[in-house]
């Protein structure tokens, strides 16, 4: 028997940073000191919000309890957390695609997933031990809006079906199991 609140989940947090030196480091510190495990940082340089801030997307892993602490710590440090209202956390989603990924145009697969789901591909790892003409596997991390994971999975399944690819889905939203 175990309690689900002990389990580590993955989260994506969207931040807006002031365009000044040291701001990114200042934003990441509260995550590390509050027990979060940083997975990736997507720094959208050149993409400025209407308020002149720079959007940054951070993937991290933490227990739900620690995650709440991280969001609080970010706010306490004066970091602008744009997607962290109770319902507005976006969700990170990891899938593995297998099959003839390269022959079926991997970049087309990714852009179709992106177009049809509103999900952002935040990380991609490809393994093609038999060369590009053989079956290969890709691990893809996506960020979606809260509550949009089911819809994203449906679209991914449709794209995969059309291309004869195989999807290994996560057990539940947010990497919980």
């Amino acid at each position, binding site marked *: 028997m175990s309690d689900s609140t002990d389990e580590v989940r993955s989260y994506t947090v969207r931040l807006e940073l002031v365009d000044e030196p040291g701001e990114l480091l200042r934003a990441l510190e509260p995550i590390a000191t509050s027990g979060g495990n940083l997975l990736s940082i997507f720094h959208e340089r050149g993409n400025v919000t209407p308020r002149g801030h720079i959007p940054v997307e951070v993937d991290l892993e933490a227990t739900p309890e620690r995650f709440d602490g991280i969001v609080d710590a970010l706010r306490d440090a004066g970091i602008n957390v744009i997607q962290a209202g109770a319902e507005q956390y976006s969700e990170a989603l990891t899938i*593995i695609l*297998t099959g003839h990924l390269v022959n079926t145009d991997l970049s087309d697969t990714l852009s179709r997933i992106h177009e049809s789901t509103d999900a952002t591909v935040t990380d991609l*790892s490809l*393994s093609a031990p038999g060369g590009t003409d053989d079956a290969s*596997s890709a*691990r893809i991390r996506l960020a979606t809006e809260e509550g949009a994971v089911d819809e994203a999975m449906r679209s991914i399944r449709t794209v995969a079906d059309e291309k004869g690819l*195989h999807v*290994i889905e996560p*057990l539940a939203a947010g990497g919980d*199991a």
Partner: protein
Amino acid sequence: MRLAVIGAGAVGSAVVELASDHGHSVTAFADSSSAVIDSAGIDTAAVLDRKRTDGVVGSDAPEDALSAEYDVLVEATPTTLGDAEPGFSHVQAALERDRHAVLANKGPVAERYADVRALERESEGSVLFEATVGGAMPILSTIDDFDPSHITAVRGVLNGTANFILSRMATEGLDYEHVLAEAQDLGVAEADPTFDVDGTDAALKGVIIANVLSDDETEYTLDDAEVEGIQEISGSALELARADGRTVRLIAEVVEGSVRVGPRLVPDNAPLAVSGTRNIAQLETEHAGQLNISGRGAGGPETASAVLADIGRL
């Protein structure tokens, strides 16, 4: 209790062997071609010996076991799909005589659950089938204790063969075909492992759980389950999962009236990522969070223990 054990495979034989240890006697025991009947109780050791050496349990006709004197009929013949025969008729024969039926055979409760329940309503006898899901693990009785209406979802690893193959592929970096051959050498996988690796066996268990959870409102059969096996899982997919702190397990998931079986990504350290032939069921309860039950999901004495636990509940 006096038991009539139908089916003399690993489970049926283990029930016969362990019955006296649980205070029961066996008055009839049948395999597919023969039976032995003794209202005073058969000599279990001698009969099991005969089964091993001669391949038969006795000199009576197998159907005579159904009309023998007994309190509980133990249905332990191989699982069949569709009409679930002959297991279904065996259960029917017991209930029509107002006797109890305890099943290790998944067919009747996975494919004809409503028919079994209808027969039970007309009978003084009861039907229990803990052994059909998760071997020795008390999954169905736990659901029953909590009441099905307080269980919102069940997820689990319910096939030890598939789990052995996946966990071995992941730890050794070997390919599916290689590990399957090894599993067959070890006796973990059968010569024909189709039902284990294509997800059918796990799906039947998921369907049985769905039937129990729906509390007789909706009947589920294998056709209602979405099933995918592990044959397409490659070593490179497991490698990618591992690099991300995850692994792949064949998960049966019963939630909101749907039954789904397929390979899923789970965190490496999650309770569901059991290794080897171990099974686990995770119950999502309405008021008490998650409840994990793990243990041996197959095997003669293990499954027979669940049968004998059911007999104790009657």
